[in-house]
Every structure is written in structure tokens, then in C-alpha cells.
């Protein structure tokens, strides 16, 4: 975990006359936006025991550090290592029951609802892949925030600060410059997360063409 002070100290140079609590708040907002847009902070939850007649599981109660992070979206789920099909919404009609639910929907953002409802208990069967964002009260960020995304978060912070009106550090041109870099970094990070950051050539000449 890396302390917020790393970014706050760098921000001193460019934000004369700023209220430091405001800088910290904007840094946290920047981190939340970054991780929400990129889903770069991920965690596997489980395997959880599925209780009989209980179809709802709030992932916020199962993540490893609920005091610092919260679930922003569920990426995938599996039951006994078999992937569950994600439904866009709750199906119409009353709940039916099944020995092995094969679908799920997410409502609200952190709650996995199995469909149909499980009839019996399934020990250590449910595994869920979730994306996290830092909470508003967070005092540290994940290690990769400093290792991989330091400049991105710094650009986001500077862009937000320079965009404040009638302040000694107000600078709309610099705000646009930093925000453009921030959004570009979000795009790159999102792509890197999707491809597991495999930067090498992944395409190979098909065998039938040789």
C-alpha cells in the first residue's frame, strides 16, 4: 500500500494557496474515477459457501479489505468452477429453485443474485471476480497505483485542481492538458487490463497456411 502523501507532496509545487484537505479530496476522487473506469483493481472472492434458499450475496462483505475498498462491479462468477451466465436484469416472474443455479444478475452493483434460487447448501462453491474502487475515507492506495499509474493519478489530480475557479492555482489551459493525459492513461490502462498487459505479439501464423 502506498500513502497518499506521495501525490500530495508532488502537488505542492503546482497548487500554491490550496487548502490541503481539498487536494486530498480531489486525489481520492481521481483515484475513484480511475479505478472505476479501468477496473484495474480486481479481486477474486471465494470460494464462498452458498446457503440453501439464499440467493443474494453482497460482495462488499467478502472482499479482503472492506475498510479501504468497495465493489464497483462484478466481472464474473462461477459455481463449482462452472462459469455462471450473467443476466442483464432480474428475470420476470417469481424465483424458481434449482440444485445448481446456472445464472446470476447483479442488483445493486455489489450484490450477486443467483438464479434460480439454490435448493441446498453448496460448500465452498461460489467464486466471484470483482472490480474495486478506493473508499472516500481511504488513506492509502494499492501498490500498483504508485508502480504503474502514478503519473496518471497525478495528471488527474492536477487537472481537477487547475480547473477550480478563482484560485491562485487556477489554470484552465493546464487543466485541459493534464485531463487529456489522464483520460489517455485511462484508455491505456483499460486496454492493458483487458489484455493482461501482454505487450508482446500474441498473433501467430495459422498452421493451415504454412
Amino acid at each position, binding site marked *: 500500500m502506498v500513502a497518499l502523501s506521495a501525490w500530495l507532496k508532488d502537488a505542492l509545487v503546482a497548487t500554491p494557496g490550496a*487548502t*490541503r484537505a481539498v487536494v486530498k*479530496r480531489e486525489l481520492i476522487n481521481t483515484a475513484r474515477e480511475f479505478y472505476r473506469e479501468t477496473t484495474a483493481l480486481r479481486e477474486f472472492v471465494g470460494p464462498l459457501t452458498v446457503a440453501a434458499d439464499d440467493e443474494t450475496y453482497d460482495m462488499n462483505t467478502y472482499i479482503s479489505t472492506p475498510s479501504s475498498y468497495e465493489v464497483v462491479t462484478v466481472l464474473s462468477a462461477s459455481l463449482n468452477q462452472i462459469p455462471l451466465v450473467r443476466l442483464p436484469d432480474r428475470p420476470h416472474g417469481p424465483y424458481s429453485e434449482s440444485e445448481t443455479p446456472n445464472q446470476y444478475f447483479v442488483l445493486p452493483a455489489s450484490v450477486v443474485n443467483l438464479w434460480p434460487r439454490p435448493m441446498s447448501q453448496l460448500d465452498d462453491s461460489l467464486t466471484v471476480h470483482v472490480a474495486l474502487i478506493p473508499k472516500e475515507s481511504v488513506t492509502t492506495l494499492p501498490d500498483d497505483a504508485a508502480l504503474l499509474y502514478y503519473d496518471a493519478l497525478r495528471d488527474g489530480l492536477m487537472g481537477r485542481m487547475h480547473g477550480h475557479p*478563482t*484560485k*491562485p492555482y487556477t489554470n484552465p489551459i493546464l487543466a485541459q492538458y493534464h485531463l487529456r493525459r489522464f483520460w489517455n492513461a485511462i484508455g491505456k490502462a483499460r486496454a492493458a487490463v483487458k489484455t493482461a498487459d501482454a505487450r508482446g505479439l500474441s498473433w501467430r501464423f495459422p498452421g493451415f497456411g504454412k
Partner: protein
Amino acid sequence: MAKTWQTLVDEAREILQDTDSDSYRLQDSAFINFMNRGLQAMATVRPDVFWDTFATDNIVVPEVTDGTLGDAFPFDVTFYHPLVHYVAGAAEILDDEFTTDGRAMALLNTFKQTLVSI
């Protein structure tokens, strides 16, 4: 030495050359009123200074009284000297002489300029 509301009054008195405690031209009560007006003016121009006082749905602008003059200045020290300038400028306005009008406006302008620019 930590800054307090009393040190703010004392530094404004230095600008006004009103440091003879045996015969102050202006009493502390006048300076307290100036400080409170200055805090309200600061809240208008820079509400973020009062970030940590936010409660329910608005900031809470502190009010200095006789009994709280000894309390520590609760905000970042970078907002201390603008308030000194405001208090000194507001006190200058009370004086009715032509030569002090320029100083009064200069000090009050310095207060606002320092809050919104470098």
C-alpha cells in the same frame, strides 16, 4: 510560536502603530468585529478554507469572541496574513484622515488578491 486570534490582533496593531497598551486607539472588541467580518469575506471568496468545518449542508464560519482570543488559529497558516491585512485595512477605514484611505484600500485589496491569486 503558534498563531492565535490574539497574535492576529497584535500583528494588525503593529501595522496600525497602535501598540501602546496604556492607550489603545481601538479596543480588542473592534478588532474582534473586524476579524469576524474578515472571516465571512474569506468564506465568500474561498469557501474551501473552511472545508473541515463543513456540517450537514454548509460550511460553519467560526465566530471569534472575547473568550476565544487565545484559541489557536484553526486554518492553514497561509490564510493568516491575508486576515491580518483585512483587519488592519478595516481598522484604517475607521480613521477619517485622507492619508489613511489609500492604505485602507491597499490593505483590503491585498486581502482579496492574496486569496485568489499569487
